[in-house]
């Protein structure tokens, strides 16, 4: 089947089997391997992408269902070489270790902050609970989202814990 959509601002099309999952279309056909597959049951969130402004699990959606959609993957976040504040937050606050959950986690955090640019700790934790991380215990991920939120509000981010002492 023919499918076409906008991915990271670029119009793309492909010829796929009807059963092809969106994540495989992104990874195999478009070679956008930043979006990962961590489970097949919509539990881990590693495959999270943004579709028409919402965080969506691309392993639970057929490529053909994204016909005409506006898809953003982690590769499309940085603009003109400038990291998105959420990407910057993950780097500045050690919000990743192995990095495998990171693209999905970042995409969830981006949509979370689009809806609420000043979330409480509780709201951040609830906002990313659909994304599993096995490395960080989420501590520095929450800090990274706090950092990004401050940046997006035009405020100075709180100091890193290792800068406080």
């Amino acid at each position, binding site marked *: 089947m023919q499918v076409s959509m906008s991915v990271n601002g670029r119009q793309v099309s492909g010829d796929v089997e009807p059963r092809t999952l969106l994540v495989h279309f992104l990874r195999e056909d478009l070679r956008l391997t930043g979006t990962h597959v961590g489970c097949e049951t919509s539990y881990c969130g590693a495959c999270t992408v943004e579709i028409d402004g919402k965080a969506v699990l691309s392993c639970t959606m057929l490529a053909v269902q994204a016909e005409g959609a506006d898809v953003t993957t982690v590769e499309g976040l940085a603009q003109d070489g400038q990291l998105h504040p959420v990407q910057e937050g993950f780097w*500045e606050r050690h919000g990743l270790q192995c990095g495998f959950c990171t693209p999905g986690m970042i995409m969830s955090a981006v949509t979370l902050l689009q809806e609420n640019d000043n979330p409480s700790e509780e709201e951040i*934790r609830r906002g990313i609970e659909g994304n599993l991380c096995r490395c960080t215990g989420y501590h520095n991920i929450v800090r990274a989202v706090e950092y990004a939120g401050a940046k997006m509000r035009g405020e100075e981010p709180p100091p890193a814990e290792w800068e406080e002492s």
Partner: protein
Amino acid sequence: MSSTSVLGGVVRRREDPALIRGGGLYTDDVKLAGTAHAAFVRSPYAHARVVSVDTSAAEAMEGVAAVYTAADVEHLGPLIAQAPVGALRPLLNNGTVKHVGEAVAMVMAEDPYLARDAADAVEVDYDPLPAVVDLKESLGGAMKVHDDMDSNTLVTWAGPFGADEDALAELRAGIDAAKSRDDTVVVSQEMINQRLIPVPIEPRSVLADYQAGYGRFDIYSSTQIPSALAGAIGRYFGMALNQVTVKAMEVGGGFGCKLNVYNDEVLTAYASKQLGRPVKWTETRREAANSTIQGRGWVATATMTGTNDGEILGFELEGIADMGAYSQNFTVAIPFLGLFVGSGQYRFPTYWKMDCVTTHTMTTDAYRGAGRPEAAYYLERIIDMYSREIGMDPTEVRRRNYIPASDFPAAVSPMGFAMDTGDYEANLDAALESAGWSGLLAERDAARAEGRCVGVGIATYVEVCGFGPAPLVDLGFSWAEYQMPSAFNGSGLVRIHPDGSATVSIGTGPSGQGHQTTWAQIVGDGLGMDVERIRVIHGDTEEAPPSIGSFGSRSAAVDGSACYEATRKVQAKAARIAAHLLEASEEDIEFGDGGARVAGTDSSVSWEEIAKTAYQPHLLPEGMEGGLEAHAIFSPGNATWPFGTHIAVVEVDPDTGNVQILRYIGMDDCGNVISPMIVDGQIHGGIAQGIGQALFEDAVYDGDGNLLAGSLMDYILPTAADLPFFELDRTVTPTDINPLGVKGIGEAGTIGAAQTVVNAVVDALESLGVTHIDMPLRPRRVWQAIQDART
């Protein structure tokens, strides 16, 4: 943020720019033209005779390249194991399968969807047999797991280490005598330390590319042990080590489960060689659950004997550890790692015995902590029960029984092992001060007065890690099966390029621990070079000298020390070149600010100039060889022994049994710290996995050997909403085992956490009469324990 490299300083991770942009390359991200994709046919039964395997329908499907059954691969032999005790895993099994998920056939096709379809088209006829799952049943031996073995018990580890039967009998007689004294109490509890599934978020993946024209392999694999995998592949296919390159690129978490050479890695290589094209296999999450190694799985009875005023006179642990169906890499060695720390950081007599039994379940092996969390769990739970029994503060009981700081550096644990450095009381005191212990108890009591179920739990631990000492080979812990004669060495290669930049090649296989950053700090610090000028290459056996990889919290302590030694060699030669260029004495040269200078003067020379000179032999001092690089092997004299104290405050909802962690405080001591940011990150993740075991995770098999927790819908991992911020601080007691003074931190959080949380929950339910609940403390189980205690 400063990019200056200083040991103990914070450097933003070198790994991150690629990973946060989606540009990191994990194994499944590597695409080679002409790749065939593999899928496995796996047993749905825990124990069954394979009557027939019909591959004809699958083979007839368009786009299927090959279907293999056991007959095709039997000539390769079984999967090798480091400790080949018990049954070894057949690469494919068409005889009698021994666990759900065991591989029966393998299919290669043009794309992964088609491979899955073809695997489903393979018809296997099974004759199901009864399964042995329960550990006590296995130990009883009424039914055999493997008909050709005398017993289901593979090995029994008893300790103290090195004690013969007479010595063990004498030890037990002494403890028995203490039990019969008038002034002693005896506390005993059977406890389950449940099976866990490691669950790195990246499923395992392997891509084998046999290049027939050159007679060599490139193997891309999500592994923690690239050198051992290269050795294994060389061995299976009769190839020299220089004909096999393993590349472990980005590895998306490991936690021990990627510390095995797997049958799928060997079979994928075999298929690539047979088909003359690259072959890739990436596991599904369900396969990650049922055919990648699991961890823990102990049932044991802990007994503590001590006086009414807190002097512990004996600790006994007797139990059974589940090895699963086959021995893989470490398998039976894991409980032995528990024996290492069986007496914790205490000085009381300890008797320890674990029977390692086989069952019709997936193999167990190293999962974060590997034997040590289990050992610490039993010890710290029973100390808590003993403290409660004699009505003494649990911190005072621990303090009273520690090995004193004055025993170091000659301390030997009651289990018979020499320990490097330790100051347990100082660490405990620091934790109590950091947490505000008496305030915590007052807040708890105030909350209880309001009718809330709040509990405070504490646990302390000592870990053994940084493997390790070369003599361990004599105990049978050898990597010889994987063509790794050096067993536990670390290695590092530091090369200065003609432009003054540096490449550091290391044989470790990190999976998120930040080696590119930490190693750049070690080398940059030694050379006075900006970390931005240093590239660290790991996980590539062609680039790096062999190392046994990343596990057991060993990389910094062993391979980091090797890199430190290699750096010193480079430094020594560079100092001679700099002295020559600056017409100064070699002894007066010091490194910093991107070059070398004569101490106390403005006279300096940059790394660019030193390097440019090094590659022009005619400019060098008389007799000096050209080039500027060095390799070092480091073989530590002992393991390292980190330690720490963890404290948790929890609240239990007695109506639902739900447990909420209100505060979590960690005071860990891993010796010197190279990067505080990375070290704290390791502890965060470690604690989260310990809390996962305490509250959520359970790889439960039913009586027929079906894995009931085979997906992330059934195997519950902690989410961000389940965990608090962790309040961490540290004491620093450097080791004298290696030149960096570092002990290792990868597993410490996990080793400390589970019993801390369970102690807190039991404390919260004390007034209701609850004395123990087996993990995981999910709401229903906690609620049931409350109901049981009330009736």
